[in-house]
């Protein structure tokens, strides 16, 4: 009988645990409307996006407007574009805001996404240490030339290395230059834009960044823009609602509302105004096709 008694103890504890979790879940539900357990009445969607949209503060500035208009909470998960697309493929996210156009189009073609729309763009810049005039003058607007110079002189370069949109862009430029970057001078960080900029700052290295994240952190960095406004440095962001055909769990209706909202004239105007006050220039240029 001893054993039975002991079992009793454990099962009592288990029962308490289950009870507790249930209470907790309901408690949390009242506490924040963001937790839902049923599929048909979603009050929250997961937005998988890039580190740049979050770290610049853009989403913090515009998403509350969406929530107050629709009552839909948006859970922003900031990862690289590559991981965001993967989250769309596995149905972990309901809507994506990313910047890797060819991968995005592939994503829609494979049936993971409903449709891809242009939302906004900014541009990529090559940043490097302030105090060292390492790059020759003729590279100022020639990103391919600049990377060639960096490789030839084995100047430390930090790559995002996280399959993000910025990383994909960087790889495509190396490809254009006909270089397989490798060696001690080429550091693959596997981190978000903010961390990589800091790393470049610490190591006095060069890195490719989107302009927005760089501007939002410029004050805490000893870096300056080395190459900008080259023709192949455009950075286009797209929005895609995840297709429920592949993942029945995703909330298409709410995701579609988000897509429509971010493409609407009002929101586009908000995007275009973001950053003007703080940085003296907009961080993103809205370009949704009305």
């Amino acid at each position, binding site marked *: 009988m001893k054993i039975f008694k002991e079992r009793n*103890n454990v099962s009592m504890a288990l029962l308490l645990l289950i009870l*507790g979790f249930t209470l907790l879940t309901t408690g*949390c539900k009242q506490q924040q409307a963001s*937790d839902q357990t049923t599929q048909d009445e979603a009050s929250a969607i*997961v937005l998988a996006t890039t580190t740049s949209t979050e770290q610049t503060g853009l989403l913090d500035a515009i998403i509350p407007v969406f929530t107050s208009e629709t009552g839909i909470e948006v*859970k922003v*998960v900031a990862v690289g574009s590559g991981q965001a697309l993967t989250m769309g493929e596995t149905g972990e996210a309901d809507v994506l805001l990313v910047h890797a156009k060819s991968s995005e189009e592939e994503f829609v073609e494979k049936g993971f996404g409903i449709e891809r729309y242009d939302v906004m763009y900014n541009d990529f810049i090559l940043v490097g240490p302030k105090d060292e005039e390492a790059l020759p003058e003729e590279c100022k607007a020639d990103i391919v030339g600049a990377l060639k110079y960096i490789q030839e002189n084995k100047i430390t370069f930090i790559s995002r290395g996280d399959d993000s949109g910025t990383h994909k862009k960087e790889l495509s430029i190396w490809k254009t230059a006909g270089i397989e970057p490798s060696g001690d001078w080429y550091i693959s960080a596997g981190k978000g834009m903010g961390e990589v900029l800091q790393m470049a700052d610490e190591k006095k290295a060069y890195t490719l960044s989107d302009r927005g994240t760089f501007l939002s952190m410029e004050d805490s960095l000893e870096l300056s823009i080395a190459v900008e406004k080259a023709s192949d440095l455009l950075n286009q962001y797209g929005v895609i609602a995840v297709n429920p055909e592949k993942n029945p769990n995703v909330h298409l209706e709410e995701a579609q509302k988000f897509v429509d909202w971010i493409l609407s004239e009002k929101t586009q105007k908000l995007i275009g105004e973001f950053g003007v006050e703080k940085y003296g220039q907009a961080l993103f240029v809205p370009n949704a096709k009305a």
Partner: protein
Amino acid sequence: MGYIINGFKEAFVLLFSGDTEMIRIILLSLFVSGTGTIFAAIIGVPLGLCLGIKRFPLKRFFGSVVYTAMGFPPVVIGLLVAIFLSRKGPFGRYELLFTPQAMMIAQFLLVLPIITGILFGSAKDKGQQVLELGHTLGANRRESLKLLIHELNSSVLLAVMTAFGRAISEVGAVMLVGGNIKGSTRVMTTFIAMNNSMGAYERSIAMAIVLLTISLLINGIVHHLNGGRNYVD
């Protein structure tokens, strides 16, 4: 050097201005880690005590298993929880990934072996005496367990405090299962990591001061319990 001093200055301004976002994050941290620890205690305390005092085959082996599990890398626990809770996973339909509950589950699993292990150890060392005493006084099993908990109450407190300290200072698992979502799953540790990566040093320093204070308090209590093991009633 200037930015560090500035960081501290601004940090104190932030701390005493009662920034609502920071306060919410601190409360959420305490709530998530506290809940995870309480549930782990509900299971771990009786489990550790029962198995500590019982003689059963493979007891030594069980001990090694629990002690090994105490060193389970938090980030791996986070990964496992994330896999199970993701929409594609076995518990996908509850949509728990990126919620505070997911963080509680991860922390619960993280600290359960810690609580169980500490109590298993102390019950193994002292349990037998207590039980014999209980037996002489004519206590049944449940009363004996009560007596044991009462006698080992400082060990229980030590285990729970240690667990809570581990839970609240953990960053890898909560980042994976919670996702550091503003206003929903952003806790102290992920807040510090994020602000540091954004170059907002004063905010990360401010939060680090809070976390450090909490951790040191807990560690101080744990140390005190560990050192002053006289059973005060």
